[in-house]
């Protein structure tokens, strides 16, 4: 557990965790925090394109202004946090579970199985992830679960490589030999001895994966292929703000700041945890 103490002592990791914690609170408490209904439209002509801090016709202050349909931007940002965080967490979870399973199977299986699994991993890793996503979303109707699934199923590769390397390293350690000698079955070996010990690097991958997933969801929604309107997602908010860029620049720019904050938070956690675990390793990360 000393690694966790090192993580807690790392300023970056703590900053990132705090940022994500705030976002999680915002997402959970969205209905109480949001000053207005994120999808409510009053008289469009009277309420659209209100600037930040403007007062609406009903006398309420629009802290961050309104969009071209007169919807309250702050409320949409707050509810967008729900989409971003839930897509990020669920997609990263799928990627981590799938990647760990494939990596662990490859490492323990060995031989041809390992070579085939790793060749497939490298092959998928070589593709631009957005291109993969585009090819996948082209086939189905857009929606929340499609976005979660395609982002999850295109993100397992780095986790698989990490998990395989980690499990292979563990296989050479004496305690595994001891467990084998004690008669532990292959499944027990994997679940009780290998996976718990391979967990920490997987956590790093997960943290970076959440940031990537959030950015990708926003990207797909921006292209009109992710979360469909009128549900507010940071990505589709930027996309709708693009049409009114000159008239009302706040619509497109503010959700982008939210995305930057979320991605930076995840990268801070990833950096902090990685340095705490292994000062030698460094990755570039990919979106």
């Amino acid at each position, binding site marked *: 557990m000393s690694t966790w103490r090192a993580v807690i002592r790392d300023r970056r990791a703590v900053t990132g965790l705090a940022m994500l914690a705030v976002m999680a609170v915002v997402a959970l408490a969205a209905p109480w925090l949001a000053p207005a209904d994120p999808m409510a439209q009053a008289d469009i002509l009277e309420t659209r394109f209100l600037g930040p801090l403007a007062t609406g016709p009903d006398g309420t202050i629009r802290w961050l202004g309104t969009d071209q349909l007169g919807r309250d931007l702050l409320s949409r940002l707050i509810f967008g946090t729900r989409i971003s965080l839930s897509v990020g967490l669920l997609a990263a979870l799928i990627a981590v579970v799938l990647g760990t399973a494939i990596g662990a199977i490859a490492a323990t299986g060995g031989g041809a199985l390992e070579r085939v699994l790793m060749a497939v991993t490298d092959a998928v890793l070589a593709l631009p992830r957005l291109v993969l996503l585009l090819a996948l979303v082209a086939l189905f109707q857009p929606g929340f679960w499609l976005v979660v699934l395609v982002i999850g199923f295109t993100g397992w590769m780095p986790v698989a490589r990490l998990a395989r390397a980690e499990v292979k390293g563990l296989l050479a350690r004496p305690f595994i030999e001891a467990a084998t000698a004690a008669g532990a079955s292959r499944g027990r070996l994997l679940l009780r001895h290998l996976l718990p010990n391979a967990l920490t690097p997987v956590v790093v991958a997960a943290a970076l994966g959440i940031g990537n997933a959030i950015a990708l969801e926003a990207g797909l929604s921006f292209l009109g292929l992710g979360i469909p309107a009128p549900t507010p997602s940071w990505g589709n908010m930027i996309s709708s703000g693009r049409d009114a860029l000159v008239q009302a620049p706040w619509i497109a720019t503010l959700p982008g700041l939210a995305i930057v904050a979320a991605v930076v938070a995840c990268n801070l956690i990833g950096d902090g945890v990685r340095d705490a675990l292994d000062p030698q390793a460094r990755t*570039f*990360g990919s979106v």
Partner: protein
Amino acid sequence: MLRRAIVRLFTGIALIFAVVTITFFLVNLAPGDPARLWVGPGAGQMELDAARRALGLDRPLVARYVTWLADFARGEWGTSLAQQRPVSRVLFDALPHTLLLSGASLLLTYVGGIIVGMFQAVKRRTSLDTMITTATMVVYGMPAYWLALVLVLLFSYGTARHGWPAVLQFPALGAAGLDADFLNPWGRFLDRVEHLVLPLTTLALIGIAGTARYVRGAVLDVQDLDYVRTARAKGLTPAGVGLRHVLRNALLPLITLLGLSLPALFSGTVFVEVIFAWPGVGREMVGAVGARDYPVVVAATAVFAALVVLGNILADLLYAVADPRLRSPTR
């Protein structure tokens, strides 16, 4: 080294083959009927059947796959459903634009990233270093399409609105002006460069931020090694030590990084092409996804896979040039 290149080439071809195979089956097993798209919503059953025969959709999937693969390998990628012209034409018209944009941004990314990263390593643990580290972290976290919109806001509209000097005014759309054909060669060149500025800045800023983060760390790792101390003790100038010993060795992992960062670069290119109406492969692909134009989607996926494979082979060769240990034939 030649052997290495040939092996890489063949694994690359195998990879592209795997990619097109997977995309073919995904597309053909997915719900939705391309024949329906082809004939339009008003058509009757007979027209639909005729279209199915014309598109070869009445044959079994595996037979279709074999013919399709043979055609695909020969460069006959079918006809775009939305544009009604050969897919190969659509994509090869777009490819030079994508290569120009991604190639130029790769160059800027590495030159800029190395300069910024080296500078930070020299000024390590000063407040300036911390400031740049924070800045690169934030810029690296920016979505390309968002940064693109901000740049358009500032340098296409903002310049005009706030009366900034005209040199800071750049076009927000396309790869060339509408009047490009009427300009003299020099004017046409300037016009192209002007159109390249904002898309390229978007990609390069994010790329430089990512690379600088990496270079700073790599240089700091090398800086305290024995041979660097030896070089300093020999009386080499700081610049000599920095360039000949530190940078040279810190650059090696950077070449590996080049191959690894290509997929991310092309992801960014797709967004930037969409925002700036840059007529490249990424924009064609996004348009094709929206129009369910499957032949273009499949072929564009293959083109991107091929670009990544080529880039990786190039990075491999570069590595062999930069690292003498890989050059010797004894292995």
